[in-house]
């Protein structure tokens, strides 16, 4: 469905992604594991069209992926960016509506909005509050909900559990599984490697901008090198 071939991404001179290739199959949860600065977010942003690869190519259903963010979204690929990036000057509700910007079905939008509020009940009390004044975790919830509002075909989730309480993390992962069950493909970057590998159909390990390892999630979970470097398991 999504195929990345040998892309190289730079920040000025900093070479952030080196010859990265990977593949995301429809209906799967594919995740990325990697230390701080490995390049996970960079890859996410590149897929979303925010950053441009200097070389290499990205295909979506066999066709080259557009490189303008709004066209990428129009293709059904939606990024929930790292560190939330909400519109601080809009209310929670307006943030959610922005998530559904390209959708025209008023009723569907309304329904989805209700769904999101059921998912994260605390949002219901905050619905008319400016997103900028929400607590960190509340913002993360809104960010995830905003991403879901576009009803994406592929959801790119960059550290969705950042700053969330344990209970809510459980919920988020449950939601990810729900979303998958509805047929959405998920590409996930997570520091919470335990959980993400557990639910992933396939996973890639990124180290200083390179893919060094890949395999089904469960397999990587048992890989000693992964355990030591990312799961904090000491042998």
């Amino acid at each position, binding site marked *: 469905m999504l195929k990345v071939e040998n892309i190289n991404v730079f920040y000025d001179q900093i070479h952030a992604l080196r010859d990265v290739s990977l593949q995301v199959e429809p209906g799967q949860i594919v995740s990325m594991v990697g230390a701080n600065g490995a390049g996970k977010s960079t890859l996410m942003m590149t897929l*979303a*069209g*925010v950053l441009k690869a200097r070389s290499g190519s990205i295909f979506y259903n066999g066709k080259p992926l557009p490189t*303008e*963010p*709004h066209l*990428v*979204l*129009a293709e059904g690929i*939606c*990024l929930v*960016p790292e560190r939330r*990036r909400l*519109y*601080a*000057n*809009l209310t929670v509700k*307006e*943030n959610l*509506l*922005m*998530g559904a*910007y*390209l959708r025209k079905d008023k009723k569907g939008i309304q329904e989805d909005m209700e769904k999101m509020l059921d998912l994260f009940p605390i949002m219901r009390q905050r619905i008319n509050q*400016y997103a*900028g*004044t*929400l607590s960190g975790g509340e913002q993360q919830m809104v960010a995830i909900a*905003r991403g879901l509002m*576009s009803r994406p075909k592929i959801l790119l989730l960059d550290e969705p559990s950042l700053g969330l309480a344990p209970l809510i993390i459980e919920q988020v992962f449950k939601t990810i599984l729900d979303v998958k069950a509805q047929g959405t493909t998920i590409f996930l970057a997570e520091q919470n490697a335990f959980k993400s590998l557990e639910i992933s159909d396939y996973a890639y390990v990124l180290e200083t901008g390179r893919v060094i390892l890949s395999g089904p999630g469960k397999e990587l979970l048992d890989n000693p090198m992964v355990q030591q470097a990312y799961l904090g398991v000491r042998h």
Partner: protein
Amino acid sequence: MLLQTLVTGLAIGGIYALMAVGYSLVFSILNFSNFAYGAIIMLGSYIGYFSLVKFGVPFPVALVLTMAGASLLSFFNERIAYSSLRKRRAPSLYFMISAMGTSIFLENMVYATIGSSFMAYPEIFKQQSIRILGSSIGLLDLFAIIFSFVSIYVLHYFINNSRTGIAIRAASYDSMITQINGVNLSRLIGLVFVLAGALAGISGIFLGMKYMAYPTMGWITNKAYIAAVIGGLGSLPGAVVGGIILGILESLVSVYIASTFRDVFSFSLLIILLLFMPAGLFGKYLEEKV
């Protein structure tokens, strides 16, 4: 006398308000003071003049031509002077300097091509005035006031409730994320500048009819900036209220204190107001949560 002063002030305030709104509109999305706005108004005024006088079209046609022309100018202004800054996420100061350059460019362009002489509009609303409670108000002024109220109300509604309006506000905070949300940013910003340009066209033609068209008329927008700040930057109703307050205050000071010290009074008021309401009457500081 007092009543007449108030009415006079209201008439001036109406024009300030109209200009302040377009200025505030751009501020509300790009968060910078578009100092080129005055030059667009000025060119709008010339377009109106040439349509009416040189091409002899009827007033409504001239108005449409002016709005279209100013919109176009405003659009290109953005594309040439701001869009690359926007893409590099330059701080707002850079936009302002670019805007200043644009305004120097446009103003002197007029000097170089049309010349420094002043263009008087034909007397369309033939100096008619109506009398209310013993004070007279020009028909043109009345029209300007009503017109500003209506256009501002429509705009306000649009910004607050429409899908595009929300996107405009969203883009003002984080343009990268709006794109991720599927917004075609270039088109959206283009639209804002077209809207602001249309308002500039209206302001230009009103200013031209009320006074005249001349190269440095953009300075009047200084007053509009002040009005917008009094009202709170980025707030459209604020721009209206600010414009009218400023207009009335100026008239009162002129008549009852001293016309020469008028600006000292209005600026002192401005500063005092800001001390108590640092974001103007209706503006809000977005306190970034720590």
